[in-house]
């Protein structure tokens, strides 16, 4: 018992280990949350621009911009994007690294969310749009009330997947000097000269966070499937 307590103190209490772990958890959550919000909003906006262009030929310039955005984000590693955001774009602005990380990951995630949502919009039968428009609803009302709720339901599993990927992807934030879960584990490792407990702990922390996210999203998904019964 004494041995276990000693080990626990060694990896989670001594030399400021508690603070590292808590800071790491807090930062991972903050970055993920900021990125999630930016990613989802950006993704929906881009998806709506792209599918409006595909269906009506309108928004030509905006569509071109979104295509360039998607091409750059999907064509380069998120690691490089993060470094560019930190050391070039926000280099001269005194922004918290957590905010910089949140923005970088959010803009990255937005590209993937956009394509997921666009596939959802495309999966809805054209007759749904026609039914809405024939009742006198305009294109925006039809999209908001008829297409999006169905599209969102169809792509929710893929969106949940993207959120999980995003949460885990934040592990590279350590490269711009922020203490997240992964960074905390390497700090503890460097003080204790032991790899096993810190790394396994980090893995467990991520797993718990992902499980919590999955649980709540699964609830949302079941609620949205009500009309299928």
């Amino acid at each position, binding site marked *: 018992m004494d041995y276990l307590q000693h080990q626990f103190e060694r990896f989670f209490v001594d030399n400021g280990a508690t603070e590292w772990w808590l800071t790491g958890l807090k930062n991972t959550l903050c970055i993920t949350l900021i990125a999630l919000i930016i990613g989802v909003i950006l993704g929906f906006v881009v998806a709506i621009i792209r599918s409006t262009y595909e269906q009506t030929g309108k928004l030509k310039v905006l569509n071109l911009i979104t295509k360039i955005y998607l091409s750059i984000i999907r064509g380069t590693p998120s690691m490089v994007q993060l470094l560019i955001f930190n050391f070039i774009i926000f280099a001269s602005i005194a922004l918290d690294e957590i905010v910089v990380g949140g923005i970088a990951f959010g803009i990255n995630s937005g590209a993937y969310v956009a394509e997921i949502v666009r596939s959802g919009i495309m999966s809805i039968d054209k*007759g749904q749009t026609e*039914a809405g428009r*024939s009742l006198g*609803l*305009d294109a925006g009302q039809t999209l908001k009330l008829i297409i999006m709720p169905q599209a969102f339901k169809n792509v929710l599993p893929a969106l949940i997947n993207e959120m999980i990927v995003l949460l885990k992807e934040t592990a590279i934030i350590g490269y711009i000097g922020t203490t997240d879960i992964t960074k905390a584990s390497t700090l503890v490792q460097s003080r204790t000269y032991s790899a096993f407990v810190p790394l396994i702990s980090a893995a467990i922390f991520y797993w718990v966070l992902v499980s919590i996210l999955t649980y709540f999203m699964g609830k949302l998904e079941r609620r949205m499937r009500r009309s299928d019964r």
Partner: protein
Amino acid sequence: MIDKGEVLIEVQGLEKRFGDNQVLDGITTDIRSGEVVTIIGASGSGKSTFLRSLNLLEIPTGGKILFEGVDITDPKVDINRHRQKIGMVFQQFNLFPHKTVKENIMMAPVTLKLMTPQEASEKADQLLARVGLPDKADAYPGSLSGGQKQRIAIARALAMNPDVMLFDEPTSALDPEMVGEVLEIMKELAQSGMTMVVVTHEMGFAREVSSRVVFIDEGRIQEENAPEEFFGNPKNARLQDFLSKVL
């Protein structure tokens, strides 16, 4: 509002071209208030395209459509406002699967602020009674049969108090035993004085209910007449051929 017998829709030289394919090749006709016009023709004749042009689901490439005196093919016209007065029923029903039956019926009038939710709810109840499905108000479309879905689709279109109803092969996707219930609703609607334009393969309906039958082939009206004359004494050779196959 609109007197019986007044011209409601005036179609002038309507054309629709998809690439090299001339689907509608100059259609001119009037739809008068209270009329029930059935449109028949072989598949690919352009009859559905014609119907879908009447509320601009297909954008014509030539000609004019005057609805209540306004040329709705003019791009400056607010088509959404005119579509509110033109109900449409589709072959594939196109109910909104994520909404209950009652929400399907209430959505457009409430969203467009034509009715309060309270008024729309009462209207929906009336319409559900009219199509014989008052017990399905809270059901989702997925749990309904094809015939029930189409009756709800008719109720949904009627909730907007349209001046004319367009039916695009409303019974073609139904199992045979469900065709009758939908035709019955349509017949009652016709008897109530609703102006209707119906694309259909139901010759019995065309003969019994319609005031005029139109035969479209190769994108043109080949013959139109009152049903007795149309079926009893067809003059156009293509129509004679078509009728000999379907009757």
